[in-house]
């Protein structure tokens, strides 16, 4: 009898080059995305050892973290260090023959937006990148995870990694999401349940009715934030929604090979009776729009709630870290979340910088204006997203409301370019991390969905978007 296997086990088994006695495997890597921040030292290592890139055809490089998002970037990158890092990527990819999408190419964007958009990301593959949000690509049923620079060098040189198998966690999302509640709210809620370390050592497979109902964009948002629950990878079984998204993409297979691929991909979903190391059920139907109040993505609450009180927390370690978070965030326990005024709004990132995200935000902003004193940055995830959004007139909706419409990049998700918070500024952000200093030293981040960010932009404070769309 054939053993029932999970999606994760199937992908793992199909990529084992060698299996060691202790379970450590040499695993083949099918796709390697490269950006400017975590690769220069890897290429330097190759150079020093006289090595070449084993499979340039399975590698794709694009600058994203450092690039300015202002239109004047056509004249070059002003920040000296950022410019040198992007130039290093250009030189390295040329020297080693790696396919490269330059900053001014219309396909440029955040690696995790570009990969799927180009059809570089496919079901059943192993995908790595020197970036923790590589988990995004798991939405296609690919085993995708972030690696450090030493491993980037290892993959460039050998197209493989030495790895130990992870445990599996099945997060079953029952029910359907209510109107105004999105994939972002779902994943924030899940992280709140699991905790920021709850997925450590695990690969999360998201299953259930609520997941099946999500678009590819929504599924990417969910998988993207798996790392915020400590899981290196998130997975969603591929289905017709997946295949429809990929068909005809520039790097996706075509013709008879496409048909052959789809047939194989239909065999990827976890077998009935396959065993997971752990299972968690989430009732998606009861969710409200969700926001973070603290400095860890696990610090979540429904928008209808209040800032929690550390005095009510029985665990002294948790209570201490809550106090620290509230002090940093400048918040008092018991304050209604909807009363929190924001200075800045950021709509973008590999979590929520895709077309559907911009459409959602635009639908809230349409016919309204940005609240006085609030600066709103809208940063498409890629040049192609930007172009499509402009064809649909979304840029006009944002501009007319008073938002800044920018060029693609990682931008204020991590503030490696000029897009940064000033100390004490409060920001409603569609990104993925609310760590201390993440968006700029002293900056205060509240994570939320694109629609919720748009609602905060026009009211000037955190707002339940459901009350605006009734």
């Amino acid at each position, binding site marked *: 009898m054939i053993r029932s296997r999970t999606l994760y086990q199937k992908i793992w088994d199909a990529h084992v080059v*060698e299996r*060691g006695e*202790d379970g*450590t495997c*040499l695993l*083949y890597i*099918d796709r390697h995305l490269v950006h400017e*921040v*975590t690769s*220069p*030292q890897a290429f*330097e290592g190759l150079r020093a050892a006289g*090595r070449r890139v084993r499979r340039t*055809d*399975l590698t794709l490089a694009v600058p994203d973290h*450092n690039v300015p998002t202002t239109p004047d970037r056509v004249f070059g990158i002003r920040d000296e*260090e950022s410019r*040198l*890092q992007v130039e*290093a990527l250009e030189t390295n990819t040329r020297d080693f023959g790696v396919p490269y999408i330059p900053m001014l190419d219309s396909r440029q964007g955040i690696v995790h937006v570009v990969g799927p958009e180009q059809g*570089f990301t*496919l079901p*059943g*593959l192993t995908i790595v990148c*020197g*970036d*923790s949000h590589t988990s995004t690509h798991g939405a296609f049923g690919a085993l995708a995870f*972030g*690696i*450090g*620079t*030493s*491993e980037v060098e*290892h993959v460039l*040189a*050998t197209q*493989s990694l*030495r790895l*130990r198998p992870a445990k599996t966690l099945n997060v079953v999302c029952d029910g359907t999401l209510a109107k105004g509640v999105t994939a972002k709210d779902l994943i924030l809620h899940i992280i709140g349940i699991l905790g*920021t*370390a709850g997925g*450590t050592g695990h690969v999360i497979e998201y299953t259930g009715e609520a997941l099946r109902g999500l678009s590819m964009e929504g599924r990417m948002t969910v998988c993207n934030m798996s*790392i915020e629950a*400590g899981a290196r990878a998130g997975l969603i079984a591929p289905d017709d929604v997946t295949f429809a998204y990929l068909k005809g993409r520039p*790097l996706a*297979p075509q013709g008879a*090979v*496409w048909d*052959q691929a789809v047939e194989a991909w239909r065999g990827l979903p976890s077998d009935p009776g396959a065993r997971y190391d752990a299972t968690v059920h989430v009732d998606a139907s009861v969710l409200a729009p969700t926001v973070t109040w603290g400095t860890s993505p696990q610090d979540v609450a429904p928008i209808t709630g209040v800032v929690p009180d550390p005095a009510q927390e029985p665990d002294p*370690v948790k209570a201490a*870290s809550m106090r*620290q978070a509230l002090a940093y965030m400048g918040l008092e326990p018991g304050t209604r979340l909807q009363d929190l005024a924001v200075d800045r709004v950021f709509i973008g990132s590999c979590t929520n910088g895709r077309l559907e995200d911009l459409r959602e935000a635009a639908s809230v902003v349409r016919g309204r204006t940005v609240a006085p004193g609030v600066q709103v940055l809208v940063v498409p995830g890629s040049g192609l997203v930007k172009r499509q959004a402009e064809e649909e007139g979304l840029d006009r909706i944002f501009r007319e409301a008073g938002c800044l419409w920018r060029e693609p990049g990682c931008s204020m998700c*991590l503030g*490696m370019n000029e897009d940064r918070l000033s100390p004490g500024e409060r920001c409603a952000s569609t990104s993925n*991390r609310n*760590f*201390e*200093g993440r968006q700029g*030293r*002293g900056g205060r981040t509240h994570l939320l969905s694109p629609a919720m960010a748009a609602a905060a932009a026009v009211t000037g404070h955190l707002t339940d978007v459901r009350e605006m769309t009734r």
Partner: protein
Amino acid sequence: MKPFQILTGVAAPLPRVNVDTDQIIPKQFLKTVKRTGLGAGLFYDFRFKPDGTPDPTFVLNQPAYKDAKILVGGANFGCGSSREHAPWALLDFGISCVIAPSFADIFFNNCFKNGVLPLALPDEQVQRLMALVTDRPGTALTVDLRERRILGPDGAPLFNTPFPVDPDRRRALLEGEDEITTTESRGESLDAFEAQQASAWPWVRTRA
């Protein structure tokens, strides 16, 4: 990679949970194209006030701890981004061992690639170490990876049982293994895998 075998040095307490890699090495230091010199940015927002002067209340700025070689931290140490700049910064500062109840996966993995030992110990052992190095500032510990022991200042083992560490990772650290060289020796297996995959899954090849 420089091997890690035995380390003796001052241990500094950092009793915070979920220390993330943005805290360990903030974004502005990620613009380098080198692995060295990152010690200057280690825990930058904790070590330096907004005006750029050192914050004397932060542990690594205190005279007894400024030459720390070991860090005792809280649970889920190193969560967040995959930046290997985090272990590079620790190493450049002089810290090559972090002891905590648990670590985030990517950081944990990155440490082993750089001769840094991330040591996950049971909660009560970490608490004991935390108390020891807090109560007596400047306490030197010895971490012996060969014997899997932590020794106190008097040279006696602090715990009855050897600490747990993955045997393969331990070997790699002790030897200072160059993992790429090891994998390159498996070239025939890689060639065979690629040939088999090309016929079974032809779509894996890109059309680029």
